[in-house]
């Protein structure tokens, strides 16, 4: 890396402030940049390159034949890919919206000084910490048509059994994800709630707002920035889910739970079409990029607004 020469400093003083100030950030950044470059950026570029090739796992990329946009077009016309994409979007939508509603609702309900709140939080983060693989196997056991906890409970209640991972696979997968991740939203919302300006809420009480009115007029609007960020984080994470579904259903029955991540991995390992898998990865990446850019636009917009406001305030004072 060539560094810009410090123009101000006198050459005979190597330890000039300017020099140190300009060098040290690069020194501190260097290891991270190197690692990210070789293990993330380069691979991503490599993937884009590979997506234009007909590429089998046993070939190096150089041996693979260049096929242009063929992989993308194939996918574009592939009903299975469409279905998988739909499943992914459905999964993400339901998971995020249900988790948001439950998580925020619970946070609003439990936002008070209750003894044992920290214990509750500890217990609630447990599901998030456990390996997705283990979560998958726990739920696979619980969903088991005969041995599983749910059907046994239904049996003992005299209710008809449910074919969890068959007819209702997507729902079951969604439930498992909700189980694992609702606490995330709960905890973030609770933190947001508790960092709300207490006095604004007290002012609302004095202004005559009932508990409901406080939630609707004060709490929710004030939590909104956090909620939006949380929502986006969850949304992006929802596209990363793979292991739980892999263990629970392996994408079946049919393609009913085959989310894109899973399909990518299957295309690469089972169908042995790395090029197609790479193209699919690119589609997914594009989708996520849209989300990310959306998130950025949002934070940028917020920052800009905050800056504008500050500027305004300074003008007046």
């Amino acid at each position, binding site marked *: 890396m060539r560094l810009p020469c410090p123009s101000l400093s006198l050459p005979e003083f190597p330890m000039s402030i300017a020099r140190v100030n300009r060098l040290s950030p690069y020194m501190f950044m260097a290891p991270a940049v190197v690692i990210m470059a070789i293990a993330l950026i380069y691979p991503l570029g490599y993937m884009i390159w590979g997506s234009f090739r007909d590429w089998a*796992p046993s070939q190096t990329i150089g041996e693979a034949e260049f096929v242009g946009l063929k992989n993308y077009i194939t996918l574009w016309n592939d009903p299975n890919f469409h279905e998988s994409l739909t499943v992914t979007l459905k999964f993400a939508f339901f998971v995020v919206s249900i988790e948001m509603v439950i998580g925020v609702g619970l946070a609003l309900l439990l936002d008070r000084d209750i003894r044992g709140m920290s214990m509750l939080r500890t217990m609630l983060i447990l599901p998030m910490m456990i390996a997705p693989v283990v979560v998958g196997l726990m739920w696979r056991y619980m969903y088991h048509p005969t041995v599983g906890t749910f059907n046994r409970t239904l049996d003992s209640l005299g209710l008809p059994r449910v074919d969890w991972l068959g007819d209702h696979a997507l729902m079951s997968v969604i439930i498992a994800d909700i189980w694992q991740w609702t606490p995330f939203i709960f905890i973030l919302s609770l933190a947001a709630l508790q960092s709300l300006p207490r006095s604004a809420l007290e002012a609302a009480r004095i202004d005559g707002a009932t508990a409901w009115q406080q939630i609707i007029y004060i709490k929710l609007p004030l939590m909104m920035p956090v909620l939006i960020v949380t929502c986006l984080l969850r949304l992006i994470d929802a596209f990363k889910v793979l292991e739980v579904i892999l263990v629970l259903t392996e994408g079946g029955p049919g393609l009913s739970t085959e989310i894109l991540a899973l399909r990518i991995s299957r295309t690469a390992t089972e169908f042995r079409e790395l090029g197609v898998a790479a193209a699919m990865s690119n589609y997914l990446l594009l989708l996520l990029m849209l989300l990310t850019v959306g998130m950025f636009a949002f934070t940028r917009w917020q920052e800009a607004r905050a800056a504008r406001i500050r500027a305004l305030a300074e003008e007046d004072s």
Partner: protein
Amino acid sequence: NPYAEYEGTTVIVNFPAHPHYDAVMRVLPEFTKETGIEVEVDQLPYLKMRERQTLELAQEEGEYDLISYVVFSKADYVFADQLENLAKFFMNPKLADPSYDADDLIDGYVQNIGVAGGTKGYLPGPTGSLFGIPFGSETSVLAYRKDIFEKHGIAEPETYAQLLDAACKIPELEPGMGGMASRAASGHQASHAFLLHLAPLGGRVFDDKWNPIINNAAGVEAANALKTIVDCGPEGAMSFGPSEAANAFANGDAAMFMDSIAFMPGFENPDRSKVVGKVGYAMHPEGVRRGSQTGGFGIAIPKNAENKEAAFLLMQWLTSKKGDLMVAMEGGNPSRFSTYQDAGLNEKYPFSATFGEALKYADPDWRPIIPVWGKINADIGTTMSKVLTEDLDIQQALDGVAERTRAVMDEAGYYTWQ
């Protein structure tokens, strides 16, 4: 002593996690004791094993000296020139055991699993040669609950009609019990289950010119049969993999189970099974013809192996009369006629005779073994799974498969000569 030269060598082998190979694991210490050759086993689920091998075999120097491969991998590996032709080992007087008796190996298996390059490229024929030896090969049989069938006076199913009839009658007669447990989970499992019925009902995936005919009447009938079976099957049948299906049967949740013989010893194991002694074994019922599956595994020596000779010795030992019997006694699947006739085995596993009989009808062409099969297989599997869960129109679904298959085949060059 032919082994002396290799004493102390470590042979690294790649085996699937599978009842047969579990039995092998119990026998391997015997081999080491006898020969002084150490064996290190990397046991993987068989689909994983295939992925691993794809990678390993492509290397210049591979990790494994001996691999076990799923039958449909034969096409890939041989096509990519990754397996050793076994001829040169059998020609080598220092290595080849004169008492090996290759004629005793079950011929159908050898043709199906070991030989490549004959008819259609994957079937035996004059142009074929031997790349692997069947080991842990399987055919399908029907296991049924003698007690239940007797109780309701149902006869052992001989034909598909009887089979389907029984499958749907049982749930009515025995509330809470499914008719037949079958694989059905999306992907490979559903495809496997469908093909299992396709051959006896007279269907094929391709005709002799590689045209997909999976959507003909036989295909529809096979899909219908599968659907009937799953619909009348036990709770949750449509997400069953083979182990769930076998467990359901072992747990008494289903009255029948038709799948590979590899599962059958498990039903006689009191640790795992609640139906010990109540199970009858019958041949795969007859549709328009008899045609049970052929499948399972073979063992082969990769081109990039390090200790090929020692690996051959292990391979030969395991598939020798003695080795085969030892493995069979531990619950493995015999690869030799003589093993099936062994009195000790028949005593321990009374169903062995039935299996031996079933083998005669094993159909080596029940599923094509060509390099693009993985993709077609996945397509059939997903489509079948949709048929089972989403009530897709069967004819339409199969037409779709046929069309996509044709495209795949076309791209792979199968129609070049037409």
